[in-house]
Each structure stands twice: as C-alpha cells, then as structure tokens.
C-alpha cells in the first residue's frame, strides 16, 4: 500500500538500559522470620507476600487435601474476628489477603493502601497466631472445594496436568499435587488446626513487603506486628525429584474432545546451576516465547494451535522444561511430529547467531519489565528468596545471559532438550488419535483416574474476570 515510498529501515535500538535493583532492607526477627522490604514509591500502595515452607518428605495425597482446605479456611476467623470482620477490616485500608498452597509453600499474598500496612500485618499476625477454623466455615469451604474439584475434572488443562505430574514424578511427593474429593470429604476443624499447629511457623518463612514504604519503617512495623508469632514447626524437606524416565506416549482418553492437550516434560537445571542461563536461552529459541521455532512452526505456519508454549519450570526439589499445546484433534500426531522435529533440531543443529541475540535481548528485557512494578518486585523477591537468593542475584544473572555463547546454548540444548529425554502425555479422544500417534511411538493408554483432583487450590472465591477474546497472539 506504500510501495512507491520504498523500503523503510528498522530503527536501531538505543544503548541497552541497565538493570537497577531498587533500595531494600532486610532483617531476621527473633522468631526466625526473614523480612525483606523493597522500595518502589510509585503508587501509594504496598504489596505483601508471606511464604511459609510446605515441603513434604513422602507422597501423601491426604496431606495435599488438608493443605488445600487449610489454605482456603485460613482467613475464616480467629479467636477475636469473624471471616466477615477480617475481610471488612482489610477492605477498609483498600486491602485483601489470600492464601494458597502448592507442593513447596503456603503463600499468603495481598496488597492495600500503603498507609494500611500496619493494619494488614496486624490482621495477618492475628490469623497466623489464632486462626480458629470454625466448624461452620470449614463445612462451607469444604463444600466449595469439592465443587471446584468437580469442575476441574471437566477441564482438559487440569486433567492433562494430573496425568503429566504422575508420569513425571511417579511416587515422588510432586506426583500428586491436587486434592481428591475422597481425601477432602472427611476433613474437619481438628485437621486444619493440627496442620496449622505443625507447619505454620516463622522459622524458614519469608515476608516480603514491596511498595510505597520506607524500608526501615516497614521493618519496624513487621517486627512490631509479627515478632510475637511463634511456635516451633516441624520442617519437612522434599527429596530431590527423580530423573525423567522416557517411555511410550501416555494417552489419556477424553471421549469427544475437540482438541488434544499435548504436554511434554524434559530435564532442566536449577536457578544457580552454571548452565541455567544457557538453558533459558535455548528454551526461548525452541519454544519459550512467541518468536520461537516451535510457535512459528505449529501456529504461524501450520495453524494447528492457538497458544503453544514451553516453560523452564523451577520447584524447590527439581526443575524441568514443560511444553504445552492444545491442538485440533485431527492434527494431533502431526503437531507432535513437528514438536519432536523442533526438539531434535535444536539438540543437534547449531542455532543461528541472530536467533541467540533475539532470545538474549528478550531475556534481558523481561527482567527490566518484571522489575518495573510493585507487584513484579514482590513476586520476584519472594520467588528468589525461596532459593536463598536476593534481587541482586539478577544482576549476576544478567551478566550470564549477556555472556552466554552459541556453544554454551548448543551444549545446554543437546543435554536437556533432546527429544530422546522427553516424556509425552496426550489428553484427547483416543478413538481418533491413538492410531496416528502410534506411528510416532509406542502408545500406552492411561486408565482414567479414580477420584477427582483439583489443579490448583483456588486462592480466591471470586470468579475470574470475564475473558474477552484475548485476541492477539498469546505473548509468552
């Protein structure tokens, strides 16, 4: 449409902006709680995260159920306040707090007006020290959790995750991360109180405060409100995850499904491993962002899927690369073939310099974007603290990303992204996809699960905001 004007040149980038770590302060309180405060005085708000270790030494589905319901009932009243009073008191300073449990931690998160920090932490302290788990509220929340489990069972994203976790981890504690209805049904107040008494303690926990606060003042407020939280907990350490065991394609049947949910898992290294930056870059080039080989192939060239993505996923006891794509039923095997092809290509053929530079810029830019908000800073600080790291680690990580060579990235790809090391799980209409999948590999049909499980313990009772056509290409 502007052919007469001739080609225009893409403007060059100005010099890269450097990563600036915002001011912060840290103190370990007498009760063992580590408090980290990060200042970002942009909007007059404060973000709060409290991470309490919730590891487990054995696979225990009943523990998963108790933890899920405890997270959902933690704010259901204390010795002195009801559910409604807690919510109203938080709301009056523009605040709210929610709790959620996963395989590694209990995370309480929230935010509010910065002037309300003391109120928010006082209520948090009351809940941590005197959560009452009233029988009525436990009954209500148990029913709600059971309903959510039923809904989750009809969601393909949930069903395929359950199958993938079992396939990846077997009898390791990570093998079951979702509560079953049978394990939730018998739970009562005494179970919640017992779990709280055993595990909700300050030793090993980290409180992160980020926002429009003076770091030293906020530390004092934290000390005054949470310094008296006490009691000894029995910390449990999760054993390291077992290596992935490659094998047949696991096919979980979902009769009538109009798409197949394809998932693959590959080995990976942790955040502080010398190859971490190189693997992060290799994963980006493969499928970790929109401008990757896998997305350009199966979405933009072939139209098999809407939002394929490949994520380098870290948990306390192990790391993995997880690929996810929901593809039209008719092209299930074709999409998996292209996936194996792209994994094989990156594991065996050198990547182009421009592919590496593009991924490198993306990784560096993502750190700048992630640190540009209060919520982003709170999240990053909490996540890294779980691995004993602080935000200044990101400066070192930036240097590693900047210096990783093609050889480094190729070596990481060859080691970790080789299709021979992948485990593959497909959820779909077995009658329509089993035959073509068996052209690629042996297929093992998975028996349907006996009981319902829930993907993620719901952290919030409010339904999610309505999803519009999030029309564009899914970013990253």
């Amino acid at each position, binding site marked *: 449409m502007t052919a007469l004007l001739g080609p225009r040149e893409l403007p060059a980038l100005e010099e*890269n902006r450097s990563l600036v770590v915002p001011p912060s302060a840290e103190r370990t309180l007498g009760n063992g709680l580590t408090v980290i405060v990060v200042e970002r005085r*942009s909007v007059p708000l404060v973000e709060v995260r409290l991470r309490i270790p919730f590891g487990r030494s054995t696979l225990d589905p009943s523990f998963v159920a108790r933890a899920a319901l405890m997270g959902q009932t933690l704010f259901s009243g204390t010795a002195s306040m009801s559910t409604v009073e807690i919510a109203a008191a938080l*709301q009056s300073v523009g605040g709210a707090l929610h709790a959620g449990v996963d395989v590694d931690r209990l995370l309480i998160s929230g935010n509010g007006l910065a002037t309300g920090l003391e109120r928010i932490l006082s209520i948090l302290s009351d809940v941590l020290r005197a959560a009452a788990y009233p029988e009525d509220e436990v009954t209500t929340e148990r029913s709600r959790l059971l309903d959510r489990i039923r809904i989750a069972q009809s969601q393909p994203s949930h069903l395929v995750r359950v199958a993938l976790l079992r396939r990846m981890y077997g009898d390791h504690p990570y093998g079951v991360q979702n509560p079953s209805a049978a394990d939730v049904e018998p739970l009562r107040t005494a179970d919640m109180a017992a779990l709280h008494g055993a595990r909700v303690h300050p030793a090993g926990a980290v409180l992160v405060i980020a926002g429009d606060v003076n770091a030293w003042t906020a530390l004092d407020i934290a000390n005054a409100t949470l310094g008296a939280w006490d009691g000894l907990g029995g910390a449990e350490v999760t054993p390291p995850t077992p290596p992935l065991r490659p094998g047949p394609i696991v096919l979980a049947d979902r009769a009538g499904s109009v798409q197949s949910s394809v998932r693959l898992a590959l080995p990976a290294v942790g955040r502080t491993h010398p190859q971490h930056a190189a693997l992060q870059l290799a994963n980006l080039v493969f499928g970790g962002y*929109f401008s990757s080989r896998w997305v350009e192939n199966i979405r*933009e060239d072939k139209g098999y899927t809407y939002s394929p993505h490949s994520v380098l996923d870290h948990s306390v006891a192990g790391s993995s690369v997880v690929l996810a794509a929901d593809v039209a039923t008719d092209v299930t095997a074709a999409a998996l073939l292209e996936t194996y092809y792209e994994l094989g290509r990156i594991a065996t053929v050198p990547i182009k310099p421009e592919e590496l530079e593009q991924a490198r*810029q993306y990784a560096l830019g993502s750190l*700048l974007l992630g640190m*540009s908000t209060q919520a982003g800073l709170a999240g990053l600080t909490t996540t890294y603290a779980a691995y004993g790291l602080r935000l200044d680690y990101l400066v070192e990580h930036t240097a590693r990303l900047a210096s990783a060579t093609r050889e480094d990235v190729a070596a990481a790809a060859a080691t970790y992204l080789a299709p021979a090391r992948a485990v593959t799980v497909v959820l779909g209409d077995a009658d329509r996809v089993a035959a073509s999948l068996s052209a690629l590999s042996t297929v093992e049909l998975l028996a349907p699960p006996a009981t319902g499980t829930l993907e993620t313990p719901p952290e919030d009772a*409010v339904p999610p905001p309505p999803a*519009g056509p999030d029309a564009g290409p899914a970013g990253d």
Partner: protein
Amino acid sequence: MSDHDRAPGATVALERFALPNGLRVVLAPDRSVPVVGVAVVYDVGIRSEPEGRTGFAHLFEHLMFQGSANLEKLAHFRHVQGSGGTFNGSTHLDYTDYYEMLPSNALERALFLEADRMRGPRLTEETLRNQVDVVKEEIRVNVLNRPYGGFPWLKLPPVLFEAFPNAHDGYGSFDDLEAATVADAAEFFERYYAAGNAVLSVAGDLDVVRAAELVERHFSDVPARPAPARPDFAEPDVTAERRQSYVDKLAPLPAFAAAWRVPDPLTDFAGYLPYVVLAEVLTDGDASRLVRRLVLTDRIATSVGGYVSFMGEAFDVRDPTALLLQAHLPSGGSVDRVLAVAAEELDRVATDGLEPGELDRTVARMSTHLLREADTVLGRALYYAVHEQQRSDPALSHELPHRLAEVTAEQVRAAAAALTTARRATVEVVPGGAR
C-alpha cells in the same frame, strides 16, 4: 496532599496533540523505570462487525500481526521480542487495542512497527487461512473444549439485547470465519483503521520533546482518512423479565448470570458510577453483601461475582452496557432460589441503605485496584488511549479514585433499587456432563 494525588503522572500534565492526518497522541513521561508502554487503539470493535461476519473484528486483529509494507510475516513479533519487549492485541466491544511494553531503548522501534501497520497490513489469502485456523483453535480452547466456555460474556448478551451489534457472538461462528475474504479485510481496514479513528499513547521512560519528534517522524506520513461515523447502538431497556437457559455438556454444576442495563457511561458518567460501586458492594470479598448471604450464610452458591460491562472494563465501554451478577451453584442448586435471595439482598440495600463504613471500605479497595493497574506503564498507556478516544479526557484514570469517592450512599441505594426483576435478563447454565 491525599494519597490519590500521588498516582503516577497525576502531577505531570499529559502531553496531548494531533497530527495533520488526524492521529491523536498522548505522551505521559515517568522516568522512574527504564521501560515504556506503547498503545494504539482503533475505534472499532465487536459491535461494528457486519451480519454474516461475526468474529471479524477479532480475526482482523490477528491479521494486523501478519506483516505490513516493510515487515514480513513474523517480523513484528521478532522485532518486539528481540528488543526485550512483549506485545499483544485484544478486541473489545467498542475498540481494538495493539500494544507493546519494552525497555525504553526500543521506543522508536515500537513506533516504527505501529506506524507501518497503520499504513496497511499485508493481507494475503495464505495468512488469512492460517489465522482462521488459529482463531478456531482459540475458540476451541476457550469456549468449546471446556466447561462454562464463553460464560457469561458470549451467552448473556443475546438475552439482554435484541440488536445484532450488541447481541451477537463476538468470537464468531466457524461458518462466518471461514467465509471471510481478503477483500472483506481490505474494506474493513480502509473503513475503520483510519489515522483519524486511532489514538497513540506512550507512557513511561520518555522525554516529551524527543518522543513527540519520533511520533512525527514515523506517523506523519500515514495517509489521512477520516474517522467513519459511529453508528448509534442504542436499544430500549428491558421492561419484562427475560430468562433463557442452555445445556453445557461439559459443565458439572449449575450456574447463572443476570444483567441489568445501566446509565450511559459517557453521557451520564455521574449516574453510571454508583452502579460500578454497587457491583463491588455486592460482590467484592467476604464482607460483601452477596458473598455473605449466598456463599457464607445460606450456602446456596459456591462463588459469586459482580461487575459492570460484559468484559469487566467499566471505564472502557460505551452505551449500551450492563451490571452483571454471576454465581456458580452446588449440585442440584436452584437458580430460582438464588435469584430470589439476591433480589432480597438488593431490596435490603434499596430499603435500608448501606451500613456504616461499607461505602468507604468498598471504595478504598476499588482505589487499590485502580492504582495497581496504574503502576504498570502499559496499564497507563492503555487507559490514556481509550479515554482519549472515547472521552477526549486521557487523564480520567488519575481522577477515578476521586470520582469514586464522591459517590454517595444514597446514590448506591438508588442504583440497587433500579435492579428490579422486571428489568433483569438471566441466562442459566444447565449442567449436562461430567457427573
């Protein structure tokens, strides 16, 4: 100075100008972080797509990412992400947005990319067919292959509204999507993607003088085309209760959503705001009216939500729109009963008004939500662009906490009184599966 005055940019005058081709521009400097948000908003959305072409506004949005005069297919994605940035676009009822968030050293590049596609996307049969396939997978993953897909944003409008622009499925039917042609796309672009129908906004780490120069450099030769006249989408209010149901074969449990029309968000903003507050009084958190009654006390619903406008964008929508309530019920739960109890609670607000402190705490939480969105340069850029486009008031977001604080308990009471059964439209999800 109150807290609210310290919203980012609140004390900085926004730079606002128009280019000779009609493009309106808003610049909002904030040098506290080395990132920028860039948004281009076109004044066309789902309501403007023609009959027989449902889903076309969204499909066309996908095509805007498929290359332009100086950009091959895939180049846009690579240039944004290869600059360390993220991108997306989304199609709304009244507008379509395209945006990037990037390190600020890539500002000029982002402006180049947006200007290039504003001059015209590459529209080919190949990319059209490819993106029809992609959109079909998007609809499968978000609507057809999951329980409660499209509930309530696609399921309730046809009950509340009668006119095609307001009532139809914005994701589109597969038949309509497959029938779309390159000629349709070219015509849609020519008509709606005019410079005069667009707003460009940049927020974050920028120098106003330099940024204005860059905007002129890249956008001033975008051909001038005037904005098309915007049709009137008005239709009469509901005067007798409307109720429909459908079977969702994947859904294990019942659910419903109900809607009432609200005052015009543009011409009667002061009359509209009490409804936005009321939705939160009713449903924000465990201390809200309906969560207390339906979920915690009577236990006849497992979750309750409430908001204004079908896509939950109370400040980015034009008339006609609605206040929505939605609830998921336990197995065997009665929608009639929940509707009756909800009506009782509305009546209680209408008759007795609000409790002491109830309005203040609700508005305080709403302020937190608004400020939190404003903490991202992209959130600000999008608000500035849409508010410039719909209201010629890009700084509205700075004033919203104040405007909400001005809403009185009496106005909220009156809003509750207006949510009568006769004006209500309800859609019910009948569970058909996963028993």
